């Protein structure tokens, strides 16, 4: 089980949660888990859309305490 990298992008607008995820995935090894915390409702849609388009795995997408927690596994 690989260690989960957490990107806390709550309350930030630029470059934003998806861009931070893309940068985080580039830094990670295949198989790595990355969790993005976002206060931007749009992240709940645009991150899964990008993950599906590239072909990574969306592990979970949940909301709690006003933040979205989206976990992605790098697959390639």
């Amino acid at each position, binding site marked *: 089980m690989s260690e989960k990298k957490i990107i806390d992008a709550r309350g930030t607008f*630029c470059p*934003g949660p998806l861009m931070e995820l893309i940068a985080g995935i*580039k*830094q990670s090894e295949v198989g790595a888990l990355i969790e993005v915390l976002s206060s931007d409702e749009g992240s709940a849609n645009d991150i899964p859309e990008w993950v599906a388009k590239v072909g990574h795995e969306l592990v979970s997408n949940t909301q709690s305490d006003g933040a979205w927690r989206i976990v992605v596994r790098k697959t390639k």
Partner: protein
Amino acid sequence: MKILIVGGGMGGTILANNLARRLRSELEGGKARLTLLSASDRHMYQPGLLYVAFGRMAPDELYRDQKSLLEPGIDFHVDPVETFKLDESCVICKSGKRHDYDVIVIATGSRATPENIPGLAENSINVYTEEAAVNFYKKLCDFQGGKVLVSVGVPHKCPMVPLEVTFMMYDFFKERGMLDKVQLHYTYPIGRLHSLEPVGKWAQKEFDRLGVTYETLFNMKEVDGDKQVVRSEEGGEVAYDLLVAIPPHKGMEVVEKNGLGASGWIPTDRHRLNIEGRNNAFVLGDTTNLPISKAGSTAHFEAEALAENIASMVKIGRAVRDYDGKVFCFIEAGKERATYAMFNYNNPPDPKPPTRSIHWFKMAYNQLYWSSARGLL
């Protein structure tokens, strides 16, 4: 208290000058010592590279002698740090000299790394170094027409540059009567034209009005120079005649080599700007791993907050304020119009329509910067 600043760019220089003024009596009385280490004896105004790329500033206008920018009382050395020993509160420089500290601030910046995408470095132009910006201008002047592709890597310094380069190229070709021979095409990594949603919406209207075509969710995977195409991680492919890259960036190698942070970005507390887990080591500007813009204004506002806190630590033993995430970015919308985006952790930007007056204010700021670096603005 021995204060050590590593890096003589915008953040490190503003911090050093601000601290030197706040701690004048402590520095004179020997209660505090302020040392600045840099890799260069020259200070570059990096935002000016955009204007060099369009023949509107000469490269030598971007530089000042670093010493000439510094307040008295700052102990300045051109001697880059090679080893950080944070557990021992000291660094070792290239010369072999050791500097001990009570408080350290790391502000070593970032660098474009086009070599990290196969084929990108040898087949594209960019505006991120003096040499690259001069080459950009020459290539633009020699361009006879065809498809110009602006493609954006992640992460990158100065989030407005992709749009600014596109708008400025439009006016460049328009002025030369070449618009009928040139197609401008823009790709962006996420599902809109800019990371800031209001800026993205504004840019889309402008692109539609100007006839600039675009594609989103496009992350460069490789460039095939023989076929003149860029392929994306998402499976797309775009042809080009001239490729303008916003290359991906990394922090400086010395940060990675010392194990301070992956890709050269140091894990940093978003309010106090300390290295996570350490209360006497701080980070400024591009060097942080914070999910905010890597821009000069970010370094500037962080430096102001940090100067106040470090000075207070010397005077009363406590920090007094948080960095609130403030960023201010001009956006050149062509040759003679500009707007801006200002935001912080709690308030999103609300950019206004571009005007000539904001453009001329930006032109004025290109000169006022030197007062800013001195910590006067």
